[in-house]
C-alpha cells in the first residue's frame, strides 16, 4: 500500500522535478545534465519576448483577479439574501461554471465575443467619421473578460462557504448597536469576509497567470506567458523554457500557499 502511494506521488511529481532540475542545467540540451548553472534564468529574464509576455500575463491576471474579486463578492453577498429553489439553482450553476472544461469556455467566449463584435463594429463605423471608427477586437479586453468570468465563480464559491460559516447574529448585533446597513457592511461583514476575498483574489490571479486554453482562444494578437512557452516549445525545448516553467511554478505555489494560510487563519478568527 505504501509502495503504491509512493509510485503515485513519483508519477505526479517526477516530471515537475525534472523540469525544475534541468532549468539549472549548464548544457543546452534538455536530456542530459552537464553541470549546475543559473544561466538560463538570466537568459529568460533578459529575453524581451519573455518579458513582454510576462508583462501581458501580469496585467491580465491582476485586472481579471481584481474584477473577479469585486463582482464575485457582490454576487456572493447578494446570493445570501436568496432562499429556496432559486438559490439551489444559482448554487448549482456556479459549480457547473467551475467544472466546464477550459476548451469549452474558450470556444464559447470566442464565439460570443466575435458575434458581439460583429454587431457592434458596424454600429461604431456608422457613428464615427469615415476611417476613424474604433474597431473592437480580441486582445487585452477579451483576455481579462474571459478570465474574470471564470475566476468570479471561484471567488463566489470561496465566499459562500465563508459567509455560511459566519454567525448571522453578528450583523444583527451591529444593527442593534445603531449601525445602519452600510455601516454594518463596512465595519463587520467586510472585515470578516476579507480573508476570503483575498484568498479568492490570489486564486484568481494564479488561475489567470497559468491559463493556456482559454487564453489561446481569446488572446487575439497578444501573447501571454503560457502562450509564449507553448509556441517556443515547437522550436525545441531549451532549458530556458524550463527556467520559465520553474519560475511560474514557484510563483503559483507561493500564491496558493498564501491563499490557504489566509483562509485558515481567517476561519479560526471567524469562529471564536
Amino acid at each position: 500500500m505504501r509502495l503504491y502511494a509512493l509510485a503515485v506521488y513519483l508519477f505526479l511529481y517526477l516530471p515537475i522535478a525534472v523540469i525544475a532540475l534541468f532549468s539549472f542545467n549548464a548544457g543546452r540540451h534538455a536530456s542530459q545534465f552537464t553541470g549546475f548553472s543559473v544561466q538560463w534564468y538570466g537568459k529568460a529574464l533578459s529575453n524581451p519576448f519573455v518579458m513582454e509576455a510576462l508583462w501581458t500575463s501580469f496585467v491580465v491576471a491582476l485586472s481579471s483577479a481584481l474584477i473577479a474579486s469585486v463582482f464575485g463578492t457582490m454576487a456572493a453577498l447578494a446570493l445570501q439574501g436568496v432562499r429556496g429553489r432559486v438559490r439551489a439553482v444559482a448554487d448549482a450553476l456556479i459549480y457547473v461554471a467551475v467544472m466546464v472544461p477550459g476548451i469549452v469556455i474558450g470556444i464559447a467566449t470566442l464565439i460570443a465575443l466575435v458575434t458581439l463584435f460583429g454587431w457592434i463594429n458596424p454600429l461604431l463605423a456608422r457613428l464615427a467619421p469615415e476611417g476613424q471608427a474604433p474597431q473592437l477586437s480580441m486582445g487585452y479586453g477579451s483576455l481579462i473578460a474571459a478570465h474574470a468570468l471564470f475566476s468570479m465563480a471561484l471567488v463566489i464559491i470561496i465566499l459562500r462557504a465563508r459567509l455560511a460559516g459566519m454567525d448571522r447574529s453578528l450583523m444583527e448585533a451591529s444593527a442593534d448597536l445603531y449601525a445602519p446597513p452600510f455601516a454594518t457592511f463596512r465595519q463587520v461583514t467586510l472585515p470578516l469576509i476579507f480573508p476570503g476575498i483575498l484568498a479568492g483574489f490570489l486564486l484568481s490571479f494564479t488561475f489567470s497567470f497559468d491559463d493556456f486554453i482559454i487564453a489561446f482562444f481569446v488572446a487575439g494578437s497578444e501573447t501571454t506567458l503560457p502562450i509564449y512557452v507553448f509556441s517556443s516549445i515547437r522550436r525545441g525545448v531549451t532549458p530556458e523554457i524550463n527556467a520559465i516553467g520553474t519560475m511560474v511554478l514557484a510563483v503559483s505555489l507561493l500564491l496558493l500557499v498564501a491563499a490557504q494560510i489566509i483562509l485558515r487563519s481567517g476561519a479560526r478568527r471567524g469562529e471564536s
Partner: protein
Amino acid sequence: MQSPSANTETAPRPLIAEFRAATRRYGDVLAADALSIGIGRGEFLSFLGPSGCGKTTALRMLAGFETPTSGEVYLDGERVTEVPAYRRPVNMVFQHYALFPHLSVADNISYGLRQRRPRPDRAEVAQKVDRALAMVRLSGFGPRRIWEMSGGQQQRVALARAIVNEPKLLLLDEPLAALDRKLRREMQIELQTLQRQLGITFVLVTHDQEEALSMSDRICIMRGGRIVQSGSPNALYDQPVSRYVADFVGKSNFIDGIVTAQSGKDGQVETALGQRFAGRLSGSLEQGTKASLSIRPEQIGLTHAPRGGAEPVSVINRIFLGEHTEYLVRHATLGDLLVLVARQAEASEGGFAPGDAGFISWAPETGLILGQD
C-alpha cells in the same frame, strides 16, 4: 397582588414599552398571537416558556429585528412598529453573545457609541468604556482579543457592550444558557444588582424557570404565541391559572380527574378509579370538566406511620439536596409523586431508603384544582 388570569393587566409603573395586539405570522405559524402587554419603567420582566412558544419573537419585535404582521409596538410613548433596529434606543445581549471577533474587547464595547452622529470624542468614549468594564468587573481587559476571554467573561463583555449605551430597554435572549451552573448563579445575582444600580428596564427571554423566578419582578408565561399568565414569581407559584403554568413554574404533582363538586373556592376531583380529593378551585371550573389536582412537593408529608387520610406509598429514590431531601415515591393508583422533605422534618421522622414503605398526606387546602388546557 395582581389578578392572575388577566393578560392585559396594567403594569405597576409608567410604561416604557408596550405591545398592542402584536401578531407575527410565519406562513401558517403564529409566533406571536395578538400580544398585548405593557412593560413598566425600571421593571425586570421575563418571558418564560418552552422553545417555539413565541418568547423570542416577542423580544425580536422589541429589538426591531421582526416587524409585527399586525398590531403595534410602542417604545417610550412612541410608535416604533416599523422602525428598524438601528434606530431604536434598545440594546440586546445575544444568546451566543455575538461579539465581533475582529475587534478588541474595548472596541466591541465602544461599537455602539462610535455609531453616534456626531461622533463622541475619544476621551469620552474611552471613559465610558472603562466605566462599563468596571461595572462588569473586567477592568483592564479592554485591549484583549475576544477569543482570549472565557465564556463567563465574554458574557460580561456582551453585557457591557449593551449597557454602555444606556438603552431604554435591555433585552436579554437566554443570556446565561451557555454558562455552567455555578457561573450562571453568579451572573444571575450580578444581573439583578446591575439592574437595580442602573435602573434600566430589563426584558429577559428564557426557558429556564429558575432563572426567571430568581431575577424577575414579573413573569409572562407563554405558550403558542400567547401569554398564558403574567404576574410576580410568587403569584405564579401560588396561584397558577392552569396545569401548564403550575408545571412550568416550580415542580408539582398532578392528579388527573373530573371536577365532581364545587362550592365557592372549594372543589373536589374524582379520578378515573373513583378516588376523591378535595382542593381549592383556581378560576371557575364547571362540574364534569377535566381538571388536575396540583400539589407542590413541599406540601406533602412523608411518614412511617399512617395518619388520618394518608396514602400508602413505596419509596423509589432519594436525592439529598442539602436543606431538603427529594423523594420519588410510588402510589398504587396515583403513580409516581415527588415529595420534598425539609431537613428538620426528616430528622424528627427519620429518613427513608429506596424500597421502604411509607405514607403520604397533605392538607386539602394546599391542593389546587386546575384546568388542564
